[in-house]
């Protein structure tokens, strides 16, 4: 038994890579549609947007770049679909320079799909350097922080921004972030000082660090990783890339849990001598 356990533990690790690849590919090719349970954190964001009256100003800060696209891109699509369906005025922007064109393409794409007009129903401010300082500057004078939008139009002349001079005129803001600057920056330098309600979306890696902000009410909800995106797609009722990926996510998690259990069992079966050898 000891020898068998030792042989199993020294198997070529590339077999595990192959297993993970197969277990990821199969559900993507043949989905089995596991149910998606919506967490209270995602529900709160959905409910808050639902509660906003038509014409409210919704700021979406896409603070990520293409390296986090699989998790945060589906999230932004689902949130934008919801906001446009509710006829909210959407202000898009980014604090991550390398994500600027991707952020523009997602906002313009979903706006076009929803039949919304640039400058009237939505605007994209683009990128401004400074991270936290941009938020502070927007809190004092949005036209000064972004004299023009991404397309070069003067923000002071945009019909949608006529009554939006500072962050105090925004009803709800969500930062979808892959790190810093992101959700925490928006809370520390934005919400606490200028008083708008704030929600967050983040990569799964950053989610544990942001949960304490929900408990204290510093953010009103959180979408964490691909799962958070899938939850929001479920709430909006338009399944997308995140929902499609959840079967593969669950399958790989099952495999990893199984492998951890088997490896631990085999490790203990090697006996004291085997454990000493490592």
């Amino acid at each position: 038994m000891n020898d068998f356990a030792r042989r199993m533990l020294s198997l070529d690790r590339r077999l595990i890579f192959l297993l993970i690849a197969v277990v990821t590919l199969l559900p993507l090719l043949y989905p089995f549609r596991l149910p998606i349970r919506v967490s209270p954190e995602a529900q709160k964001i959905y409910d808050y947007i639902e509660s906003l009256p038509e014409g409210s100003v919704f700021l979406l800060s896409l603070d990520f770049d293409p390296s986090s696209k699989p998790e945060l891109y589906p999230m932004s699509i689902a949130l934008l679909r919801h906001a446009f369906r509710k006829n909210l005025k959407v202000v898009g922007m980014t604090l991550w320079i390398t994500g600027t064109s991707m952020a523009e393409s997602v906002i313009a794409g979903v706006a076009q799909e929803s039949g919304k007009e640039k400058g009237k129903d939505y605007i994209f401010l683009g990128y401004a350097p400074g991270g936290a300082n941009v938020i502070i500057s927007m809190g004092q004078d949005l036209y000064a922080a972004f004299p023009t939008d991404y397309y070069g139009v003067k923000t002071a002349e945009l019909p949608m921004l006529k009554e939006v001079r500072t962050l105090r005129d925004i009803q709800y803001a969500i930062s979808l972030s892959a790190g810093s600057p992101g959700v925490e920056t928006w809370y520390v330098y934005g919400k606490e000082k200028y008083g708008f309600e704030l929600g967050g979306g983040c990569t799964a890696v950053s989610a544990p660090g942001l949960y304490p902000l929900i408990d204290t009410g510093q953010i009103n909800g959180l979408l964490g990783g691909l799962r958070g995106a899938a939850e929001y797609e479920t709430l909006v009722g338009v399944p997308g890339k995140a929902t499609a990926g959840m079967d593969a996510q669950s399958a790989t998690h099952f495999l990893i849990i199984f492998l951890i259990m088997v490896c631990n069992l085999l490790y203990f079966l090697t006996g004291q001598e085997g454990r000493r050898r490592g």
Partner: protein
Amino acid sequence: MSIEIVIGVWVATGLSLFMYSFLYKDNPFFKLGEHIYVGVSVGYGLVITYYEVMVKKLYIPMVQGGNWWLILPTFLGLLVLARFIPALAWLSRLSFAFIVGVGSGIAIPRVISSLILQQVQGTLKPLVTTGDGGVVWFTFAGLNTLLIVVGVVSVLFYFFFSIEHTGVVHKVTRIGIYFLMVSFGAAFGYTVMARMSLLIGRFDELIEYASPDYDYATLVLLVVVIAGLVLWERSRTPESGNG
């Protein structure tokens, strides 16, 4: 489908497969992909910073908008580059003094208020609550609060090194270790989820690119990479090492 998109898809698919080939072992395909990635990342960062910041936020507002006061921050920014000239390196201290002074002034009060005081406030919630129905001695929220308080205090004890961890202190620090282990486990679980999400995102696109719309890019390039790896393995002499 436009030719630019098809070319882009073939390049993206090829590079993804090159990078995944590392799972077999370090090989020339991976090295090529790695070098292209580093080069393109730096190039993309430089170009987009030049256009989005230097042109859109500096040149246009200053030259076309007449905001000549922007010369001041530009000058401070240029002083940072003085570090490359040893005789003038001291000038960069002016810029750094400005950055550190303003940065600290902005950050310290806000961070203390938001991430320390408010978190402490969130930790110390009442266990027993009163309402219209009288005193409520037990709620699940109260149980959560108790768990959070025990966790915070025991973990703080674990990182308190001024006294020896013996007796009662040792027992409290042991509890702190259990809380830390649970927190590491949760963080690791989320990390696995994040990495799998990236893999799923990439596989999703590779499946899409395997369609006739993209001239079977994934399938063709997969065969090319595998054939290339076989040829590379055969061309290696035993003395050239194991990769």
